[in-house]
């Protein structure tokens, strides 16, 4: 009964950690995950993935999901 939350790049640095394991209780969507992680507002332009797929803030989250928050990508 848990959600794995991952943080990358600037968001990882700001929060000071790369992963949280949250109790699933009371979480229904991606926005709830962020509120459980920190009282700080979501930084503008933050990108979200659920189970390694790009997702929206209102996307439903299920027990066992992996949710990630990160800045716009700059690879290649």
């Amino acid at each position: 009964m848990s959600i794995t939350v991952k943080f990358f790049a600037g968001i990882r640095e700001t929060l000071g950690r790369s992963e949280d394991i949250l109790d699933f209780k009371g979480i229904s969507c991606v926005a709830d995950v962020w509120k459980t992680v920190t009282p700080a507002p979501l930084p503008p332009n933050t990108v979200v993935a659920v189970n390694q797929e790009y997702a929206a803030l209102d996307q439903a989250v299920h027990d066992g999901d992996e949710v990630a928050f990160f800045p716009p990508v700059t690879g290649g």
Partner: protein
Amino acid sequence: MTVPVKLLAGAFDPWQELAAHQSANPGLRGKFGATAIFVGTLRDSSRGNPVSAMTLEHYPAMTRKHLERVVEDARRRWDVLDVLVIHRHGRLRPNDPIVLIAVWAAHRDAAFKACRYAIDELKTRAPFWKREEGEAGVRWVAPEE
């Protein structure tokens, strides 16, 4: 079937990788007439500021999933025979290769289009983040305009 996506923590030589990949796929022999290749390399300056090193962070599980899907998409959309994607992570120095995309096809139009598609997709969608080190300290690179 050769491995289409490699994520490497250490330096790689694009020319050796191309030679090795091509010879590891004997089914290509005589079938490909066109190979289109892109190599991305770390420059020693960025928007006018000197760069002494760069660290590439990524989201391993999602990176692999995304790049494998880019390869699948390229194979489905164009008439290509083989695709190879290699991407570095970790700390790089100027002149180090960052990314290699190679597409083997019978004809050049498919090879060029699939190669360009793959690098554009990778640049705008694959979960990598660049942190540059230079005279002004360390900073995260902003996305392309």
